[in-house]
């Protein structure tokens, strides 16, 4: 049943400190809301547990993309549109810009935020595998201070994160050292726009002296959390890309994931497609190297 707006409170503190004070005053009571592309869906369906919301859409400190010599710092409330339109992000972090272009449609990209996607912690979110392969680091902030968390350790279980009840994600920091990598992203879903992925892949790789020097693979929709394929990466590092290696990687990836069957797909299909996407990346990777 639809929610009654009279039962909800939404305040607009307008600045970060005031928002953090509210969160600290009554931890776990308040829920931050930015673009609302996830929370308003729950709200409309009568499934939003919190009755008190803090509007963080209009907080200037959360909306900037700052470029430093060694990293790019993305404010948590930056929208997908802002990411797509940002010159450095689209040039140096194409996997993120591409994932942003797959998220919803234009109207949702104008409202949906990267920090919101992270905090919502859906294992099917398209932008999260890109953050995993780019070694993203999160700054979490509360009245107690700031702390930095490797994004790789942020998701602790299905819809569970390292975020404390009084904390906000302030920014997402990406090191600027991947522009020399071959990158590949692929979403498999009923369609790119709007549809939620059955499987999506973000992959980066670098070859030196004919062998894989570094490879980074992350998949969405195949486990309770967005997943880095550590074992598959390990099996590939230092090797030459040959048909037998591609076959090994395909099998390793299919074994490493923990997919479920749900309304969008079956676990068996997801395992087969995950392996195929990794194989497709390796073929592209080898071809790019051959042409280099």
């Amino acid at each position: 049943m639809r929610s009654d707006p009279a039962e909800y409170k939404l305040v607009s503190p307008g600045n970060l400190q005031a928002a953090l004070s509210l969160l600290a005053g009554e931890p776990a009571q308040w829920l931050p809301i930015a673009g609302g592309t996830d929370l308003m869906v729950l709200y409309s369906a009568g499934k939003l547990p919190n009755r008190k919301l803090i509007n963080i859409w209009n907080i200037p400190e959360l909306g900037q993309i700052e470029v430093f010599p060694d990293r790019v710092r993305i404010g948590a409330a930056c929208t997908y549109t802002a990411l797509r339109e940002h010159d450095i992000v689209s040039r140096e972090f194409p996997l993120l810009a591409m994932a942003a272009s797959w998220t919803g449609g234009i109207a949702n990209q104008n409202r949906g935020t990267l920090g919101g996607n992270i905090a919502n912690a859906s294992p099917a979110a398209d932008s999260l595998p890109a953050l995993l392969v780019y070694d993203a680091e999160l700054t979490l902030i509360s009245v107690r201070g700031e702390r930095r968390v490797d994004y790789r350790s942020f998701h602790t279980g299905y819809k569970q994160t390292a975020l404390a009840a009084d904390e906000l994600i302030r920014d997402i920091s990406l090191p600027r050292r991947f522009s020399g990598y071959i990158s590949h992203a692929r979403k498999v879903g009923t369609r790119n726009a709007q549809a939620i992925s059955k499987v999506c892949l973000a992959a980066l790789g670098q070859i030196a002296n004919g062998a894989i020097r570094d490879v980074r693979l992350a998949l969405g929709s195949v486990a309770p959390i967005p997943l880095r394929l550590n074992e598959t990466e390990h099996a590939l590092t230092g090797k030459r890309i040959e048909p037998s290696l591609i076959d090994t990687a395909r099998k390793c990836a299919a074994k490493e994931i923990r997919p479920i069957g749900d309304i969008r797909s079956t676990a068996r299909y997801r395992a087969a497609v995950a392996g195929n996407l990794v194989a497709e990346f390796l073929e592209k990777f080898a071809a790019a190297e051959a042409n280099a």
Partner: protein
Amino acid sequence: MNPSPETGAKCEVLFTVNGEAKKVLAHPMERLLDVLRNELELTGTKEGCGEGECGSCSVLLDGMLVNSCLVPVAQASGASIVTIEGISAHALMNPLQEAFLECGGAQCGICTPGMILAAVHLLEKKPEPALADIREGLAGNLCRCTGYMQIFEAVARAARRRVRK
């Protein structure tokens, strides 16, 4: 806006709708869609899915295309909103309206206000869109009548006419 003191309290929201300053008294979590339709009687904005999938409720919020079913009205405080009613004054309206009529871009009409708003938003950013741009620009707007090709052609035709002028 003033923070509402208690759950259940309404707040005053001031914004500009189709160029006119408006003041409404609403619960801050009321959907912008409902305020537009019920309080301001701007019923050109349609509700389709109510969950940001179909684009029927598209409006421009400070020039950005948004699904008004996903915007709590308090977040529209101070904003400038343009609905399909306000688009009639837009320079793109005549070419779009003509092209939609000529190409059969509207049938039942429920998606049409959203399609027009999405097309305006696209053509403001890209006055000479490729077909891929049109498909992407309208990808968040569902139509169950036309099969889309007539709509894509209408937007392409409107863009060509506008560029020629």
